């Protein structure tokens, strides 16, 4: 597949409040795998994701996908390449889960057409990938927050993008589902689909990331592999708490992050 994403000196600021924007961010993503963006609340993670999907227009700098500037692309063109899952979704009507997921075919379906059997088949396969086939006919409004998150990810898979942007995909999930979702994401990444996700859990970045970017006050602190970037000093600086990074070996060996309560 291969995708090349370049974020070049990007800057965005809201006109009412400066804190949630970001400035001078330069990032490139050429390889597949999962990139986690860490950072405290309001550091501009969500805004950055929205700008990469072209939902918000940069104030300065530029973003290009496969060497094509985002500003020159139509919404439909972007949607065929980039899939975006927001943090929250407030449903308005009681669509069945299948109807809500097949909406992901929108960029591939002509303006006056509606989804055909093939499209429903793709939607069903996406539900299967997410392990929620049993929800197919459930009204969307009756789902729990976690189920809704899974449905949203199924929808974005139905979109068949070449780059996935997930905004805190684990935030509404219980302990078990968080880990299940991470392993699903890792499988997807292994099939060659690059994923950029924001997260509040350093452990998740250790568990399932090939690259980590840390943001603070709208600026990029550091980018690199998890073991290089996720150091005690970096995390302490960003989150303003004491943390210990330790390697554990209890049958599985892994690096974890322990917050210290004083």
């Amino acid at each position, binding site marked *: 597949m291969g995708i090349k994403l370049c974020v070049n000196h990007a800057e965005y600021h809201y006109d009412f409040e400066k804190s949630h924007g970001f400035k001078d961010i330069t990032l490139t993503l050429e390889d597949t795998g999962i990139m986690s963006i860490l950072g405290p609340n309001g550091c501009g993670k969500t805004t950055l994701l*929205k700008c990469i*999907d072209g*939902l918000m227009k940069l104030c300065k700098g530029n973003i290009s996908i496969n060497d094509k500037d985002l500003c020159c692309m*139509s*919404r*439909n*063109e*972007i*949607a*065929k390449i980039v*899939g*975006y899952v*927001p943090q929250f*979704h*407030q449903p*308005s*009507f*009681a*669509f*069945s889960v299948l*109807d*809500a997921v097949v*909406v*992901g075919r*929108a*960029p591939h*379906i002509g*303006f*006056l*057409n*509606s*989804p*055909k*059997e*093939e499209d*429903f*088949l793709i939607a*069903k396969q996406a539900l299967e990938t997410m392990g929620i086939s049993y929800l197919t006919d459930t*009204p969307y*409004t*009756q789902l729990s927050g976690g189920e809704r998150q899974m449905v949203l990810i199924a929808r974005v898979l139905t*979109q068949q993008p070449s780059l996935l942007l997930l905004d805190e995909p684990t935030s509404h999930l219980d302990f078990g589902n968080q880990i299940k979702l991470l392993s699903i994401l890792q499988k997807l990444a292994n099939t060659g689909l690059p994923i950029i996700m924001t997260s509040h859990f350093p452990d998740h970045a250790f568990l399932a990331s090939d690259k980590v970017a840390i943001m603070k006050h709208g600026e990029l602190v550091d980018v690199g592999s998890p073991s290089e970037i996720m150091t005690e000093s970096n995390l302490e600086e960003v989150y303003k708490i004491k943390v210990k990074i330790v390697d554990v070996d209890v049958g599985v060996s892994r690096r974890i992050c322990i917050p210290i309560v004083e």
Partner: protein
Amino acid sequence: MKKITTPTIDKQTTQKSHKLKFLMALKSLRGLPISIILIILLVCLFILSLGLGRYPVSAENVLQILFSHVGSGIQTIITGITNLLNLPVTPIFGPPVSDISNTVVIQIRLPRILAALIVGAALSLAGGSFQGLFRNPLVSPDLLGVSAGAGFGAALAILLSGERILIQASAFCFALLAVGIVYTVSKVIKGNRTLSLVLAGLAISSLFSASLSLMEYIADPTDQLPTIIYWLMGSLSSLNLTDVAFAAIPILCGMTVLLLMRWRFNVLAMGEEEAQALGVNIGRIRAIIIVCCTLMSAAAVCISGIIGWVGLVIPHISRLLVGPDHKRLLPVSLLLGAAYLLIIDDIARTISSLEVPLGVLTAMIGAPFFLYMLSRRGKGWA
């Protein structure tokens, strides 16, 4: 149904696709009967309504009259062709019988019944579309000021001339003007566009309502004022076929576009930003929907006067019947709206020797029925 032709598909997926096909067939079957039932119901209602009234005509006679007109139409064409080719003429269909029942059915009832059908269909389709666009089941087609604009336009024309054609034209133009102002003003307001449209609609509507009140205040209370008030309560009496034909043009145009793009409403219902993430050019689609709905409801209101409640309740009842998927919801809304207004208009013209205003009846019958429907269903709102 189209067959999937993927040669490389393995056995498991073929099985799955068969199962899926079966499920989809079931699903479309579940939706199909209701549209067909509604179409049959509409045809029956149409014929019954033509016979209904102070001079009753049996359904058999109604059909006879209708066929004789169709026949004479065909005969005219045949005669034209044979004349052109210089062939001897042997008439197959006779001229239509012209007696009292013919006059009553064709000249008096047919325009009115056609008007009820298109006005009902237009208002409820516009209502359903607006509810999808604004992601809110409580929205009605006059959200952006169509009714207020039309009311003011009609009152102004009544004050200035009282000519029927002028009243219709003025109502239509001012309805478009009101929505045009709302759309332009909403661009200036900062923040969420949906909200700014609703707020601008509210403000402009009350501006036109106030101007309407002023018109009523200065109107001649013996003659003009009752005309204005009667117009505002809605009525389909005294319409002729030309009026209906003129209103039908914008209504059918809007209807065609909205029905063709109806699946897009499912994408819009996900929310503005998500629809954009799914590749929807939100500004363009919003403009298309607003233009279509405004043309439809303005054309409806300008021949019928203000008929509230249809555009709010019918999409809602349709949603209770077939669910929120706009692919089925919008056609069902359209058919149900046409049937509903036809029944209401039949009641309005037959219940007493004095004609009951339509706007009064739609609310008096619609509101209790709506509450009954809501109380009957277990699942949540919308």
